[in-house]
Each structure stands twice: as C-alpha cells, then as structure tokens.
C-alpha cells in the first residue's frame, strides 16, 4: 500500500490518466487559438472545443450552446449570481440561498448585499439539508434568484434540487416574474446522475478538477429555452462564449474536461457503487471501533464518497497530526489560531467543540479496501491515544455527560 493515502477528493482529484492522454496533443502540437478564423491551427482548436462542448452538455442533458466555459466553479458561481442579479434586477432584488453554501456563493451574495440586494440565508436542518417548503416560504415578488448547491462539500448533504426546481418554476409562472434557479453542482455532478430539465435548474456551476479533470477549467450551464436566461457580462473582452465570458479558450483543459465528463457518464454507476461501499465500510469500521463519534450530514441523502465525523473529546488538528499518512481535512477552520470552527457545521447546530473535533473523509475512485482497513485501524489508535491526553474526556466520564450527545451507532 502506498503512503500517504489520499482521502481528500472533495478538495481536488488527480487527473485521470486517460484525461491527461486526451489533453496531451493540445499543448505543443495542436496549439491553435480557437478564435483564429483564418487558418487550420485555429479551425482544429475550434472543432475540438465544439466537440468538447457537446460532450459536456450531454452529461447534463443540455445543449452545447448552453455551456459557457469558465476558469472553475468559483467563476461560474460569480457569473451566475451577479449575472442574473445585474441583468434582471439592476436596482436590487431578493436572493435566496443557504448558510452552508460554498464561499464562492456566500461571498458573492454578501457583496450583492452591499449593492442593495436582500439575501435570505436559509438555515439547514441538523443534517445539513433545506426543504423545498423552506424555499417556497421565502419566495417574494422581488425574488430574482434561488441559489442552492446540489451537494455540500464538507458534509456531502444533498439538497432536494428537483423539488426546489419545481417550486421555483411554479412561482415563476404564478408571479410572472424573472425568477431563476441556480445550483452549484461542483461536488455532485460526477456522483449524482443529473439532468437539467428533470431538475428544472436554469443555471448550474461545476468544476473539472473535482471530477478527475484538470484544474483551472469549469463551466456554467445557462438555459436557452423555457426560459431563455440572459446574464450581465462579468468579464468583458472580445465577446467569446456568446459574449458571456471573454478570453482565449483553454483548449487542452477544455478537451480534458470533456474527457472527464465522458468518463463520468460512462462510469458513474460503477464508481458510485464502489465509493458507497468503501465509504460505508470506512464509516462502519470506525463506528465499530471507536465510541463517541458523531456523523455530520444526512445519513442517506449524502454524497456516496463523503463521511464527516466528529470524534468526541479530541481536537481535529491533533487527530490529523496523528494521521499524518492519511490526507483528510478538518472542520476546524484555518489554523487553530483562528477560533472559528466550520461555518457549515455551525449552521447545522453542531456544537463548536464537535466542529473542532471533526474530520472529513472524502473518497475517490483510486481508494481501495486495504486502504480503508488501514485507516480504520489508524483512526481507532489515534483517538484512543488522544483521549488519554484529553482533560475533556476525563471530565465527561467523571461528570457523566457523555450521554448529552446523540452519538452515531454502527448498523
């Protein structure tokens, strides 16, 4: 077994070697600028981009003209949110989002608040989900955008996007208003079969590097029919991408992104089954060997690859230090110098102390059972050793307060 073991696939994934192979010729040989209309170097690039666009659209059940290439999900989120608000509610309007969205959404919403927009931040339930009813309850006449992620990066919790999409459609029809639904699907897109029409989303962001494609490339799906969605330009320039996003197209990365989408479409079913099996094995293994563990995020309505667990009475960073040959991430933000625990867990009413004690395991298709067994063993030992050091563990046992928390049980 090769160490260190990578279990932080929600942060980024390696490029699939087949993706890299597809990208290779586009760096040094077929290097033309897709906007060069006057020679074969340009035409080749343009053709590759067009074919890639189609492959990517296919994964979403979209049409190629609905795909706008960006530098990643952050840019897609910015373009979608500011693009809609500035186009349809230039003098201010109302946005609905959730407290557990990615910073690319939250910071953009906060910026819009300074520009006179009103934002409702829905509070998720303790398992990290919002309901379609919560959305319905907040829609107003001046609501211009509902933006809710498909799956949360920290907990894996999956929102009921299809139901929310239906609610938004109904209100749009009823209010005859400009009201759109955007989803940041970055974490979900290769793990949850997704069709933009069935889900009734109008805009969708995603990023190649979360699905075994290269970094620095992403896309925004922008609906062209029922309704046709227009966006205020965010990046001005020559007018590439139907004027929605200017800049020379990144052919090698676009080709790689498309290959990743093609592979995702072909292999999703197998991958999801494998990932769920590994993840459940990991989670059950830990729960069987370690007590006082809390699961963060919904048990079933959750990404197949993600397990976010809080280990009572020990601090996350020290736990990671014990697990140095396993790459995971912690809900303890930043460095422990910042006393802010994860805002996602906090929004779910996870007590700060359990947020500080949380680890996120996010698995990928290169993990295997042997690694899982190794990790379970390592985690159990590390937790035991750290609890021996923990004054809080002593106090809880002495004061008999361990029963105050709803610890997870092995099945």
């Amino acid at each position, binding site marked *: 077994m090769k160490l260190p073991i990578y279990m932080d696939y*929600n*942060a*980024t994934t390696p490029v699939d070697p087949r993706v890299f192979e597809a990208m290779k010729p586009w760096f040094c040989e077929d290097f033309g600028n897709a906007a060069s209309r006057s020679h074969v170097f340009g035409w080749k690039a343009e053709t590759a981009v067009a074919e890639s666009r189609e492959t990517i659209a296919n994964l979403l059940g979209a049409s190629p003209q609905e795909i706008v290439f960006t530098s990643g999900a952050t840019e897609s989120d910015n373009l979608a949110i500011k693009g809609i608000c500035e186009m349809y509610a230039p003098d201010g309007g109302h946005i609905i989002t959730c407290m557990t969205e990615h*910073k690319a959404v939250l910071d953009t919403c906060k910026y819009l608040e300074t520009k006179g927009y009103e934002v409702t931040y829905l509070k998720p339930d303790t398992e990290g989900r919002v309901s379609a009813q919560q959305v319905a309850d907040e829609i107003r006449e001046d609501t211009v955008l509902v933006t809710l992620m498909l799956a949360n*990066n920290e907990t894996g919790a999956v929102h009921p996007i299809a139901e929310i999409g239906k609610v938004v459609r109904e209100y749009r029809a009823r209010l005859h208003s400009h009201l759109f639904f955007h989803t940041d699907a970055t974490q979900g897109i290769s793990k949850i079969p997704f069709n933009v029409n069935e889900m009734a989303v109008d805009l969708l962001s995603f990023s190649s590097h979360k699905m075994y494609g290269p970094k620095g490339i992403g896309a925004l799906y922008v609906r062209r029919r029922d309704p046709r969605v227009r966006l205020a330009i965010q990046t001005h320039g020559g007018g590439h991408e139907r004027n929605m996003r200017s800049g020379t197209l990144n052919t090698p990365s676009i080709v790689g992104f498309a290959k990743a989408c093609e592979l995702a479409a072909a292999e999703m079913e197998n991958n999801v089954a494998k990932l769920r099996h590994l993840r459940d094995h990991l989670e059950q293994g830990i729960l069987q060997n370690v007590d006082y563990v809390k699961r963060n995020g919904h048990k079933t309505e959750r990404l197949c690859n993600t397990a976010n667990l809080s280990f009572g*009475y*020990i*601090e996350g*960073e*020290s736990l*990671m*230090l014990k697990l140095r040959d396993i790459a995971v*991430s*912690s809900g*303890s*933000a*930043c*460095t*422990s*110098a*910042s*006393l*802010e*625990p994860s805002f996602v867990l906090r929004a779910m009413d996870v*007590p*700060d*102390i359990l947020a*500080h004690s949380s680890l996120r395991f996010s698995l990928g298709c290169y993990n295997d059972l042997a690694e899982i067994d190794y990790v379970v063993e390592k985690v159990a030992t590390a937790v035991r050793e750290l609890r*021996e*050091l*923990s*004054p*809080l*563990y*002593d106090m809880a046992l002495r004061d008999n307060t361990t029963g105050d928390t709803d610890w997870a049980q092995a099945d």
Partner: protein
Amino acid sequence: MLQYSEKVLELFTNPKNVGTMDGDDPHVGTGVIGSPECGDVMQLQILVDDQGVIQDAKFKTFGCGSAIASSSLATEWLKGKTLDEAMAIQNVHLAEELELPPVKKHCSVLAEDAIKAAIEDFQKKLEGRTDKAELHSPRCCEKLNDCEGCGSHGE
C-alpha cells in the same frame, strides 16, 4: 494543520508527563486554561514539596499538536524549579524552544497561563483559601484577523 517542527512532532508523538494528580491534595496545584469552543483546553498540575520546589508536573491537553507539545515541555521545565523560577517561565521561551510559527504562538501563551494558574491554585490552598480551580479563558482567545495564508478558503 501546519507543518510542525521536529521538536513539536517529537513531543506530540511521545509526550512526557501525561496524567492527572489528585486535585484535592494540598501539595497539588491545578491550572485549567482554555475553552473547548475555541479548540484548546490545557490542564496542568504541579506537586510542590515543603521547600516550595516542584517535585512533579502532569498535564492533559485538548488541542492541536503545538498545544500538546507546549504543555508537555512546560511540565518538563517545571520539575525541579522553585515556584519563583516557575513564575519566570514565559511563553516566548516555550515558543522559541519549539520553533512555533506565529499562528501557533497562542499555544505557548496558553501554557504560560496554565503554569501561572497552577501556581496560583497551589498558593491559594497554602493560604487556606478554598475556591476550586476553574476554567480560565485564555488571553489569546480572540478572533485573529490576519487570515493571510489561512486554509479556510479550502476548496
């Protein structure tokens, strides 16, 4: 998690003086500093002989690797010191010895505070005061603004 110095790693992996003493023993002083919400709690205890020399020291710490290493180092340094000598231990000494990066300075502050709290607790007992050792909020428990190089903009 940061990249830790060799010294921190060594003390984290093989901590010295882990344990608990009887807090009711009049020879024992107990300091507990930090808050679980902030991610650090240090419990530091000293056993003081009649000459006012620290015979033994123990700790338990909930916190990051630097916090654990700082408390372990503090207990090492305390043994054999008089109370006055112990009072003179400053966080910078611990931070230097452990090569703590700036964002981890507060761990050494916590340890200094825990030393002082333990000595104070012992002295109270000596003076016959009966109030129990309690959790002190650490001096460093303020939200740091300097987020340059912070990892919260994770992914």
